């Protein structure tokens, strides 16, 4: 039986929880099965044996970016409806999990989320209130989030086996490739404004050329060696209050 619109809405809404049962054995596999259930129940209505077999197939190990998993849920549902043979379904699962992960990671975690976060921070640092700044982030980010999830589901159902072609070199990947310069510039601007805000909390001003120069060198060194840069940053975060408290104790 063909899934109804309400089944699609239910499956789409369940993709918001697709990673909840993530584990080291099946990764997001159980979550995919959970999200597909409204579709599978309709497709195999009155046939519990087929339903059990399809749920078992759906629970097998799978991984991908959580927002783009909506594409896999819909495409796999489509394959079940078309009665594709299990071998084809398994090949499809193996073929799309790589692109679903890398394209989603690069576009959403690598670009969209940091850009929205940085815009919100910029707004606060330029004088917007904390409530407005947080609201700006949530509305902006989730506008993109909901759009990507909805697009992914719709395209997955329409394209079925063809979603792999849409992902590799698709608009999302191209967009991610264009946005990184904006992201980097925003990172530099906001980091400097945060330092200025902190310096002002301490009752000083950001006029030390030496500090700005050393900061620039440290930022570039961390860019070249990000792992070590992260460790240095963590150490400095701990050193700061130690210096402050020691100074207060010593006088």
């Amino acid at each position: 039986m063909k899934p109804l619109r309400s089944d699609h809405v239910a499956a789409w809404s369940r993709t918001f929880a697709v990673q909840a049962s993530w584990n080291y054995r099946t990764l997001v596999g159980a979550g995919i099965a959970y999200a597909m259930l409204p579709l599978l129940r309709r497709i195999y209505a009155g046939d519990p044996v087929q339903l059990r077999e399809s749920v078992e197939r759906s629970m097998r190990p799978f991984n991908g970016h959580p927002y783009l998993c909506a594409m896999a849920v819909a495409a796999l549902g489509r394959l079940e409806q078309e009665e594709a043979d299990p071998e084809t379904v398994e090949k499809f699962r193996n073929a799309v999990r790589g692109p679903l992960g890398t394209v989603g990671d690069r576009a959403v975690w690598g670009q969209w989320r940091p850009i929205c976060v940085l815009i919100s921070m910029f707004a606060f640092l330029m004088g917007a209130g904390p409530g407005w700044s947080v609201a700006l982030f949530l509305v902006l980010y989730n506008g993109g989030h909901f759009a990507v999830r909805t697009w992914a589901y719709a395209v997955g159902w329409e394209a079925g086996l063809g979603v792999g072609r849409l992902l590799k070199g698709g608009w999302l990947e191209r967009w991610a490739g264009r946005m990184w310069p904006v992201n980097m510039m925003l990172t530099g601007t906001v980091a400097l404004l945060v330092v200025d805000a902190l310096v002002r909390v301490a009752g000083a001003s950001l006029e030390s050329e030496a500090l700005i120069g050393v900061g620039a060198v440290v930022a570039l060194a961390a860019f070249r060696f990000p792992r070590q840069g992260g460790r240095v940053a963590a150490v400095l975060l701990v050193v700061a209050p130690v210096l402050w408290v020691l100074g207060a104790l010593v006088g």
Partner: protein
Amino acid sequence: MSWSELYLGPGTWILAVLAGAGLGMDSVSWPQVMVSRPIVSATIGGWLFGNPAAGMLVGLVLEIYALQHPPFGAAKYPDTGPAGLVAGAAYAASGGQAVGALLVSLVIGWGLGWVGTVTIYVRRRLNERIMSPDADLAADPGLLEQRHRIAIWLDALRGGVLVAAFLVPSVLAVTLAVGTGPSALGRNAFIALALGLAASAGAAARSSAFGVRGWPLILVGAGLGLLLVLGGLT
């Protein structure tokens, strides 16, 4: 700020724990709308104690630190929802003005973020047990749904427990730091924090860049920021 002025009643504590439960499950389990980001969670923490701007200030620094850890593949990243809430709440509860309190709040927020990461790994192991055996779950789709929902609630419980366990000790630790005044040595604390932020920003920019090209863009961005500061626009 004195001890007598500090108010952390049971009502505020319960609200914080409930918020921690929601923030704890947001980043992975449901609904992934990113209220678990530090700028949001720390602001909520500040708001619980009547000073969202103080929470946001903590969130700004934690966010720059968190941006260097995107959840690509199997990468480890800090669990910033409950941690941001605790740090923002602790700073706001301390009055949201003392420099020493801010510095201690930041360390608590970052450290608790990594404690949260450990609890996420424990929960993933627990999920392995909850979501098995496959044959039983496939035979009874209702059971699969039930177990999946249990996994969501477990994540909420994880976030709530983190806040319940760490909120009061954090508020006390941060409040202790309120009394520490500025000193010659203490001024270096801000140099350390500023350089830490610079290192974080560099590492964060690399995680979004495709390769090592484009490094001058960080400097261009910082230069624009400096113009805004020197122009008095901030």
